[in-house]
């Protein structure tokens, strides 16, 4: 199964989030709220991947610092 964050871009999710959030709340349907929630969940998945990459990179730098060879 393909990861949803590979299929929908951060920009597409940003558009979804902004579109729902800019509306008067009492006109927002359940389906729109669910779309907003799903977009934010994918945002979280992307954030976790980015943080893991950052940590990996920092670890690599640490290793380099430890091993001058």
């Amino acid at each position, binding site marked *: 199964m393909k990861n949803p964050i590979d299929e929908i871009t951060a*920009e597409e999710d940003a558009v979804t*989030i*902004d579109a729902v*959030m*800019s509306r*008067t*709340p*009492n006109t*927002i349907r*359940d389906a729109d*709220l*669910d779309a*907003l*929630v799903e977009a*934010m*969940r994918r*945002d*979280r998945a992307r*954030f976790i991947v*980015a*943080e893991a990459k950052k940590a990996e990179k920092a670890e690599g730098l640490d290793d380099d610092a430890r091993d001058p060879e």
Partner: protein
Amino acid sequence: MQEIRSEFELKPRELPKFWDASTFRTFMECPRKFELSVLDGWSEAESAVDLEFGSLVHLGLETFYNNIAQGKTHDECVREAVRAVLHASWDYEEDKPKLGHYADAWHCLGTEKYRNEKGNTAKCPYSHKGKVFIGPDPETCGACGSPTRALRVWVPADKVKCRKQAVRVVVWFAEEFKDTHLELVSIGGQPLTEFHWQKAINDGLVFCGNVDGVFKLGDSLFVVDYKTTRQSLGKSYFRQYDPNPQVEFYNAFREAISEGLGLKIEGILIQAIALTQNGVKFGVGIFRQSAARRQEVVAEIAYWLHIAEMMAKRGFFPRNTSACFRCAFRQVCAAEPTARETILRENFIRARWNPVTRQKEAVEGTAS
């Protein structure tokens, strides 16, 4: 001579009846700050964003857990929590979101050639994807001569504590703690979230506080307090909570908090929410304190109250100048005494924190 005489003409002040952890912390930090903020009700105008953002997060999490207690599905609970935050953060009178404003902006369409400083052809810096510039639409880009597009954009009052972030906190929190062992405690179907407790000591003195929730972790019950922060969540972040006036105050009165509930609370659990522009991180810290330590805290509270009563009788609350760093009233205390009232009126609002209603309320007889 006038200065010396005025030292003997101070009028006694009345202390508040209700003392929460914040009231104590302020007094312990600096008696003058206590006088200015708690007794006189001076408050920073810009702190409204922090307060409003905190209220939105609390509302979202409270709604999420209340819906869980009603037996709704996880997705339904998240949806209802998001709905609550969106409603509470919308200004229905002006039909626009709170915590920011709309502004005119523009974006270069980049149809004409642009040359950079070195004279090479490049993409116009005003036409980069996602780049918008606040201000009236110039119609023609000053850098490359391309036509521009006018936009209306949302500008948050605070990029980190904004409306979108409040919704994000709720959605991400629900994901983060989805399969956790931390369970909200309910009594008779009533979830123990956002409740107020009081412990009357005498007619003129009541200790009080507001609890974000009572949660069960394993066999132990904890009072949970949500903290939003811009700091990163390392050991040093959690070190600030031991010792800490709020954690110690809640631990000292944990019997009073659970009085009537038939529960035995064993400590305080801090659920920290670290905010950045790109995302949110969560962390948990548990703080139990022994009976001996709690007794020490009670003795200290009695001591501080005694000192407060002495100062109130004398009508004089001295400055603690070792605590001025980052204090909002620093500019007031650094000014000539005769200029302080003017500085307060020009830079602060009159809105006193009410520990019972958990709201900032306008001070009677003053214009805020």
